[in-house]
């Protein structure tokens, strides 16, 4: 990487930037660009806001759903009676 990127190049790197996957040269070029380009700075700002917002609102507690035991048993019994399953228990 030559050390300078344009807006298109900036766009191409933004996801890797948020995933912390840029190498040091890419990171330097990326940060140089957004500090010099207000449009890209705005764009990065709104992009990271979305990620942070989702992380804040989509907490793991919302997704600890489990199947009721009766449903689990019903499905498990169904699977154990499939033709592919041996009758030897």
């Amino acid at each position, binding site marked *: 990487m030559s050390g300078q990127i344009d807006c298109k190049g900036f766009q191409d790197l933004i996801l890797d930037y948020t995933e912390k996957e840029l190498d040091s040269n890419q990171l330097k070029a990326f940060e140089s660009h957004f500090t010099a380009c207000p449009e890209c700075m705005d764009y990065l700002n709104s*992009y990271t806001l979305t990620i*942070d917002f989702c992380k804040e609102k*989509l907490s793991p507690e919302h*997704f600890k759903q489990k*199947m009721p035991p009766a449903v689990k048993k019903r499905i*498990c019994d169904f699977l154990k009676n*499939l033709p592919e399953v041996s009758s030897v228990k």
Partner: protein
Amino acid sequence: MIKEAIKYNEEELVTQIKLGNPHAIETFFKQFSNKVFRLCMQYLKNEEEAYDMVQDVFATLIAKIHNFKGESKLSTWLYSMTVFSCIGYLRKRNKKNETSIDEVTQNDQSKHELFFSKDVGLDAEQYNPTSDDLINKEDYGVLYREIFNLPADYKAIFILKELERLSIKEIQDIVSISIPAIKTRLHRARLYLRKRLEVHFPEYAQKDNVRTN
């Protein structure tokens, strides 16, 4: 036989499932059923449909277990099957409201325009809220509804990355598409959600919060 004392490593589990061992199948189901159910709920948002999908996914995996070559983890194969089954089901169920990525992007002049134009390439008005999730101004409900309204291709990647918190590489193992394609879909999902969040939470959009790594 002391069934409860038997514990399988992955290789043994696969072997025993291939032999049709009911105890191995029960072990496998108990180990992964909650996670598969949660994944199904994130796509389908309907408990009864999710229960049916869990049953179908496990039954299909058991029927096709002889195709499993051990090149990935069994759980990866299972999650992959879950994701594609849910996507296929959603496509049939929501055919009117869905737009494929190709339809969305074919009118864009270039990626540059897509990223910088105010319209991120998706017309949010195309997507109608689901009938079983009425307008709910609680943040979580609103966000979840918008995620649910994503096109299936975007939603698949977004759920695996942002809800299941998998890495890009783990996602690739599940959905078997290239990493650039995964990144593109994730990126577009984020752009779409950004647009929708500006509508629902304008105060959030005004925050000055540039994150530096």
